[in-house]
């Protein structure tokens, strides 16, 4: 799909943060975070517990409003893309009610919300896209299964199928691989890399440093402030390797 790639390269937004500060009551979650996620980049956010990783992703997806500072999500072409439709966000532990009586197909079809809104029909074309997306995440033919019949890994695959349908230029994933079986992690990581190849801007909160080293070109090491931000090789150097556990430990003791 060469045209499609082209399209995303020009649409994928560049995100600039300026002096972002967020606190929950007296607890400071993020402090003077400044920097840029380049257009079409794949960045891992790492850091100890309570270092503000999730908060930063929530700021970008407009779930949390920073007390101070500003950020912009700009497309390289002049199209404004602050619109919600351009951003896909997968929260850390999704609050999906798994006992709710709907099918896999129905849940995945909500990825088309931006097109269908409340009323438009799910066309045969859309149903085909849903089937294709399920195929891509390895859940072919599971359209009519109930949500409560899925395992944790299968459910995460379903949520990724919905991300495919959302077709967003900016994708924010908050610890998508935590508590998921190895095979699923491998398949879903391949999907993330495919999205990266298509030129989308992707930001993923990660815990597994080996995976970060292997797959992510950029890394942001966060401990309420930016500790280090740049190419993964520079951020995760041998020298810093010693530094990271120390800083993990240090911030943990604040929690």
């Amino acid at each position, binding site marked *: 799909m060469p045209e499609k790639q082209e399209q995303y390269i020009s649409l994928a937004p560049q995100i600039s943060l300026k002096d972002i500060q967020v606190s929950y009551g007296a607890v400071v979650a993020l402090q003077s975070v400044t920097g840029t996620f380049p257009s079409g980049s794949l960045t891992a956010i790492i850091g100890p517990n309570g270092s503000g990783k999730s908060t930063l992703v929530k700021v970008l997806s407009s779930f949390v409003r920073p007390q101070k500072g500003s950020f912009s999500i700009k497309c390289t072409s002049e199209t404004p893309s602050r619109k919600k439709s351009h951003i896909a966000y997968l929260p850390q532990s999704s609050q*999906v009610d798994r006992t709710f009586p709907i099918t896999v197909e129905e849940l995945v079809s909500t990825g088309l919300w931006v097109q269908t809104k*409340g009323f438009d029909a799910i066309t045969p074309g859309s149903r085909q896209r849903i089937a294709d997306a399920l195929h891509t995440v390895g859940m072919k033919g599971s359209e009519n299964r109930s949500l409560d019949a899925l395992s944790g890994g299968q459910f995460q695959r379903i949520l990724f199928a919905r991300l495919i349908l959302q077709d967003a230029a900016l994708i924010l994933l908050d610890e998508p691989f935590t508590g998921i079986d190895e095979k699923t992690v491998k398949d879903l990581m391949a999907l993330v890399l495919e999205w990266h190849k298509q030129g989308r801007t992707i930001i993923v909160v990660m815990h597994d440093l080996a995976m970060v080293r292997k797959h992510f070109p950029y890394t942001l090491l966060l401990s309420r402030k930016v500790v280090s931000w740049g190419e993964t090789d520079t951020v995760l150097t041998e020298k810093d390797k010693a530094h990271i556990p120390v800083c993990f430990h240090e911030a943990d003791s604040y929690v």
Partner: protein
Amino acid sequence: MYDFFFAPFIEHLFLKRAMVACMALALGAGPVGVFLVLRRMSLLGDALSHSILPGVAIGFFISGLSLTVMSLGGFIMGLVVALLAGVVSRVTQLREDASFAGFFLISLALGVTLVSMKGSNVDLLHILFGTILAVNVDALLLVAGVATLTLIVLATIYRPLILECVDPNYFKSVSGAGGYYHIIFLMLVVANLVAAFQTLGTLMALGLMMLPAIGAKFWAKRVWSMILVSFLFASSSGYLGLLISVHAGYPSGPSIILVAGVLYILSLLVGTQGSLRTLRAGKRPASPKIS
């Protein structure tokens, strides 16, 4: 046969009206109840049903036993409690159920005080238990109007309402309107409770909304089929309850709700989805013996 099952409803106008009122209530309250169950708000309906009392009492003070004014009063009061509770839970850290409890208790106490200040105890009993056998044309129009409105509005907000139940975070990430659908839905709940209070009373109004919906959960796997089962349960409770009330001389409101209760317990025992029967027959492994 005919004399027992049909004749009363054909020969007596007041029973005919009561029957029609029950059918209309079932059409509106059945689906609304299903969404209350699915949204895990079963007990919030209880809170709302109690909170309409002072509104009804104030309406009674202003214009005596005028159904329109009393219903309007109840609707406004229910809405005030719902909105206050919603706003408090959004602005402060209090959860929605707790803030509902706070406001509905104040409202209930206020309502009982108002009623006992001026009305006789008979009035209080009428408001608490309803008088389905004295349904007049005005009341029928109100109930039918609310049922019609409920079905139209639910059909309109069906998809966003479901998405807001299943995955509120996702809905928030694609649309900023989630809160509005919640308020529209709460308005429907209040409207249906007001429609039911005249016929079943504020204490019983919720019964026809919740019991059929909870029972339906044991038979249906989809939202639409739950709504269908809920309506069938609610309407048959209305019919059988009135029948029992006619032949045995029991009060009509509680009879209707008791039938709904029996249907719920039967569903709990022998339903096809996760009932006690399916759990027994299921593959629950024998517990290991410790020797």
